[in-house]
């Protein structure tokens, strides 16, 4: 599995997300100047251009923004994995952020844009690392 895909030395900007996920924490870059949470990490805040931002704990819940069920393996390493669901989640505390993830415990036919989801942590279909994956949040359906 593609552990090699994570090269810590060259990915200092991206690594804290993985470190937090390993501790089952969901974090996003948050601007220290205007408070904007953004995605993906970049050198300056996309809202106010401040260079002072930090990774901040973020409530691990949101809503399904869009999704697809993948039937064709676009990489041969995914041949045994299809079909699988990919979702894009908009976190409640970070409007405008589109978090690519997966969803578990729901049939594709029941999936709807707007459904409330909550994160748990597990290795997704094409990684050995603990990362946020989502489940339907029964408390908010």
């Amino acid at each position, binding site marked *: 599995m593609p552990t090699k*895909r994570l090269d810590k030395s060259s990915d200092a900007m991206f690594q804290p997300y993985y470190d937090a996920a390993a501790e089952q924490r969901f974090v996003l870059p948050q601007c220290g100047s205007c408070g904007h949470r953004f995605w993906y990490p970049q050198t300056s805040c996309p809202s106010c251009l401040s260079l002072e931002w930090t990774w901040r704990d973020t409530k691990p819940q949101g809503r399904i923004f869009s999704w697809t069920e993948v039937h*064709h393996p676009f990489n041969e390493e995914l041949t045994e994995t299809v079909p699988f669901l990919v979702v*894009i989640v908009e976190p409640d505390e970070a409007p*405008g952020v589109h978090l690519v993830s997966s969803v578990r415990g729901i049939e594709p036919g029941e999936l709807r844009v707007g459904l409330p989801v909550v994160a748990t942590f597990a290795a997704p279909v094409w990684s050995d690392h603990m990362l946020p994956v989502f489940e339907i949040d029964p408390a908010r359906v």
Partner: protein
Amino acid sequence: MAQTVNTSKQAVISGTGESRFSRRSDAPLARLQLDAINAALTDAGLEPGDIDGVFTDGSVMPVSFPIDVAQTNAGLHGVRRVGQFATGGTGTALAVMEAAKAIRQGDLHAALIYFGVDWGSSQPPYSFHDRYRAKVLYEQPYGYYGQALYFATIARRYAHEYGYTMDQLARGLGQIAVDHRANALLNSNAQQSRSLDLDTYLAEGMLADPLRRYDCCLQSDGAVALILTSEEFNSHKDRPAVVVTGAGYAADSITDESFFSQNPLFTSLPSAHRSAALALSNAGVTVEQLDFVQAYDCFTPSPLMQLEALGVCAPGAGIEYVTAGTAIGSDLPLNTHGGSLAQCYLLGINHISEAVRQLRGEAGAGQVKNASKGAVMMAPGRDHVTLILERS
């Protein structure tokens, strides 16, 4: 800034050349590209030494067939300006825009623009985005891999935002695929040679729901070359001159890496709206005056969003619009050569050579009657170019 068209010089696309297009060619990319360049020189009635500018895209060709190699093998000994622009399809359209400007200003006499790929025989283009660390680290672990997934999630969100059922969405996207195929059957250099009907489209299984096989472009080996000259350097006074009368480029303040998942509008292309308005404005042309549109069609939702950006229909009305049909014979035919979906996937440069063919009246069975004005739009991403071409 808006360019004025009433300068003393106009930029004419006076030569086009296409290699044979196929899924897998026996010839290497270099040979296909040289075939296209030589065909363009012949078409323009120019010698290799007449070319004084060489332009291509800034990401694909610099690796696979860079300008020094192209120039050397084509014998272009008079070059005094080169340029590489943007990425892939946007880059070749931007090259036309920049070459046209240099010609209008009198800086160049004859500019060559070239582009080709051998992605049909070498490898599918999915790994092209492995260069982006955010995609590798934050998207691919979930299997969000392959550009079809980007457009699958865009299409589903589009249906949600504008209140289309998934069946309405399927019939709209399917009609795009069907019409592209019908157009390709009228083109002599198209990879697809069998017809496609909507029932066959709908019976296909999903690749990435809601996209099916025929929503995805071909994989191809092929190359195209274009030559722009001033009007006085256009040696063919006997046929209509195809003039670049309008061109617009716009780029959003978002990285390539982020665009497809993080585009704030998600179901529309802000840069395409801006580039289209610029191009129409500096050509002094309205959408109603256009006789065809060639729009980058990597996946069926892509031309849909660009037609909306051009103002052919309102944002969200695209599915309704394409369901009514956009094949040759309709009011405003889309991708008259079959596009990347059915002619050949060359990241859109074949859309430009097709536009020239139409405006010269040389499109044979696929000719749009009395075509005198057309738009070319490339590509669906953070940046976008619209060209307005007219027969003079």
